[in-house]
């Protein structure tokens, strides 16, 4: 598995766990709020788990953008320095 796929699948698992879904239910572009009924506290929980797992600091200003798995990946990749 490439780093890209591996990171994406790890993030999918985190998102699925917080949103209480199965990983396969989380589509890459699925909007957390519109499609999965997430609220702002869940977004914060997703951010907190990512920060803990990858030991990165992500500014809270990024929270508004982190509304889909794909968007989360893009933000995390930038702060974690992933070059996938």
């Amino acid at each position, binding site marked *: 598995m490439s780093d890209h796929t591996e990171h994406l699948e790890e993030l999918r698992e985190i998102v699925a766990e917080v949103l*209480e879904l199965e990983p396969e239910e989380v589509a890459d572009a699925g909007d957390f709020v519109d499609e999965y009924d997430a*609220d*702002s*506290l869940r977004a*914060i*929980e997703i*951010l*907190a788990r990512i*920060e*803990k797992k990858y030991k990165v600091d992500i500014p*809270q200003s990024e*929270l508004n953008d982190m509304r889909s798995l794909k968007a989360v990946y893009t933000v995390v990749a930038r702060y974690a320095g992933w070059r996938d």
Partner: protein
Amino acid sequence: MSTATPLRAIDSAEVSEGTVRAVKKVAADDPYMPGHFPELTVYPGVFTLESVQQAVAEAVGPVRLARLRSARFLAPLLAGDSLVVEAAIERADDGLEVRARCADGTGRTTAKVSARYEQGSRAATDVGARLDRHRPRSGELRLDHDAIRAVLPHRHPMILLDRIEHAAPGERLEAVKAVSGCEPCYQGDQPGSEYPASLLLESFGQAAAVLWLLGATESGLPMFTAARDVVFERPVLPGDVVRHLVRLDQVVDGAAFASGESFVGADRVAVVTSMMAVVRPALTLTNGNGRNHHE
């Protein structure tokens, strides 16, 4: 040995095949409620857990909370509000897996709970040697009961901490809670000597709140918003001295995440994988917008 109950957390219940629906009206004069809080009655998140447990007990008989897989508290319930619990109960191995949705009188979801319960009795903890694993280090704080009350808005009888030892503000602390047969959950002739899991979790949460608030600039009422994977390993009984070892893992955008373990003597009684809380000004809870406080 069965579990004590902090309050009657359901007023009525309807049981059907594999499900139970129960209703509770939040009352300011219920046991423990005068202390949560003196100025504004908020039904504690842990009492929602208590409502779910008592609803399940209506369907299957007495149960104990073995593992809280996930709890989310989405909106606060104030005095006069109704809580409607709808729980689906499935038998699994030798326990019960329960998924519950809680709503207020208008149908708005206030909490979601997923938990494992057990039936039958469990051996009590042997009170072993007292823990001496955390020797005081320099720079650590010790808080007596006065100091705890200065930090927390909770009051008697809902202040479920006696002393804080070895606090490194914003980082970790050790909190002491002595369980006594004098507590309201043991009043009357109701059976049960095990300390309620809901109150044990509340006590842990209060320790986490002290840890957070000691190092924080936020002010207001700390609200328990979510828990993930809390395992209750051993019963806690009157006479036990519980020590919560709490770590503050993260504070993100005004939300705090804590984890830790609780011990009686050398025996671990509970493990908290993650607990989440926010601080809300009391005012925002009472106006219309605040009802959906997480938005």
